[in-house]
């Protein structure tokens, strides 16, 4: 899928939100979209998802099955969790049995089992966000677009997001993820697109794949341990107190 000289503004005569964006995502590719608040990350993702149409230029070769997880799941709807997911599965063209299987799989996988019959407006923000993630995965997407997917999720589900991303990529699907919390360190090997002032700067994945290792050190030796890791060329991302010790 590729964007050819894409320009977008929301109204005639208004300011350009995106200008001359040209980029490409290959099958199996993972792209992290970065940029400050209001830079146009969500706009770019909605263009790629097919929600918005470019004012100029084209988005070409968009895959048939697109899964989009919006930044905020629209929970103000009168459906139960399974009622909503079944309706979305039907919209995907899944038959009754296939829809039931897909809904059961993702309800189980995302820990939504206890919320099957709960109405969407009664869900917490994080649980609603899980429903948003589930609806995007009911049919295996060829293009998965995650707009700030870690917002409001519990630790277990935050760990599950990279797993899902890697699964989609391994199947040959493309994945775009926006993030402003630094969570995308969980996606080593991803290309980065940076949106700033309406333009897009792309960077290929780093050649040496990097991973994140969580290490517990004695509090008394914290400064020394951090210094030694840095001396050895490692990138210390953050230091936090161990919970539950």
């Amino acid at each position, binding site marked *: 899928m590729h964007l050819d000289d894409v320009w977008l503004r929301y109204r005639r005569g208004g300011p350009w939100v995106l200008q001359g964006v040209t980029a490409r995502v290959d099958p199996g590719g993972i792209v992290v979209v970065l940029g400050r608040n209001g830079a146009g990350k969500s706009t770019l993702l*909605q263009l790629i*998802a097919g*929600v918005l149409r470019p004012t100029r230029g084209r988005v070409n070769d968009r895959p048939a099955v*697109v899964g989009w997880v*919006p930044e905020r799941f*629209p929970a103000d709807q009168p*459906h139960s969790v399974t009622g909503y997911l079944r309706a979305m599965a039907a*919209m995907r063209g899944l038959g009754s049995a296939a829809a039931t299987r897909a809904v059961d799989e993702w309800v189980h996988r995302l820990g939504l089992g206890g919320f099957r019959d709960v109405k969407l407006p009664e869900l917490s923000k994080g649980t609603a966000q899980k429903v948003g993630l589930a609806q995007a995965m009911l049919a295996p997407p060829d293009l998965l677009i995650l707009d700030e997917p870690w917002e409001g999720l519990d630790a277990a589900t935050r760990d599950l997001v990279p797993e899902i991303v890697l699964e989609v990529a391994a199947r040959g699907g493309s994945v775009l993820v926006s993030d402003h919390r630094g969570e995308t360190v969980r996606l080593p090997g991803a290309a980065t697109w940076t949106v700033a002032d309406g333009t897009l700067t792309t960077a290929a994945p780093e050649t040496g794949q990097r991973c994140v290792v969580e290490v517990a050190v004695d509090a008394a030796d914290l400064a020394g341990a951090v210094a030694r890791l840095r001396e050895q060329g490692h990138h210390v991302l953050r230091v936090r107190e161990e919970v539950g010790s």
Partner: protein
Amino acid sequence: MIALTRMRLHGFVRTGRAVAPLIAALAVLSILYGGGQAETVEAYGVSALVAFPVLAWQTKILLDVEPDVQRRLARVTLGSAAREIAAGLLAAATAGLGTIAVALAVPWVFGGVKGDASGVKGDAVSILIGLAVHLLALGPAVALGALSSRAVTRTAGMGAAVLVTGSVLAIVLGLQGSPAPWLVPPLMAATRLTTSGGTTRTALTLIAHATLWTAAAAFAYARLRRNRA
């Protein structure tokens, strides 16, 4: 597309938003039939005219129930803007058929119309004519309601302005001697046909006029919605 149509109808009913237009329809019908018994076909002609703004309002309410982000999700999930747009119009038309069924039944339940002198067969013909004249109003009403929906007009004020202006113009420009009756759906002409009579050719012309108006307004709605997900 049918799945999305069902989902939108479900939302319309389950949120209770279907109640307000139903009450409005019943209020209008009770005023219409409250003055005594009328000739069935004539009464249905006026009923279709007064049902027009109710059906348009009902369409706006139905389309506005769904949160904006869910509407966008539906577009991505279906993979087609055209099918997402069509599903909304289909849901509104289906809900409109329910309201029309109420409008056709109410005068019989409350004795608002005189039965046909020729008996059941005559009554059946009157009901069929009544259905036809209400269906003539349904297409334009759905199109007008869609044009006033939040996805197009963005604000509640603009939505109300489109809905009210469209409904008023449909009556004013439909009056006899109007300089531009073709600009609005032929609601007034259809009412005149049921009260004063007319030829089959006149009826077919009105059907063609209403169909063309509906198609033009629905096309305008679809064009506007292409860039307004």
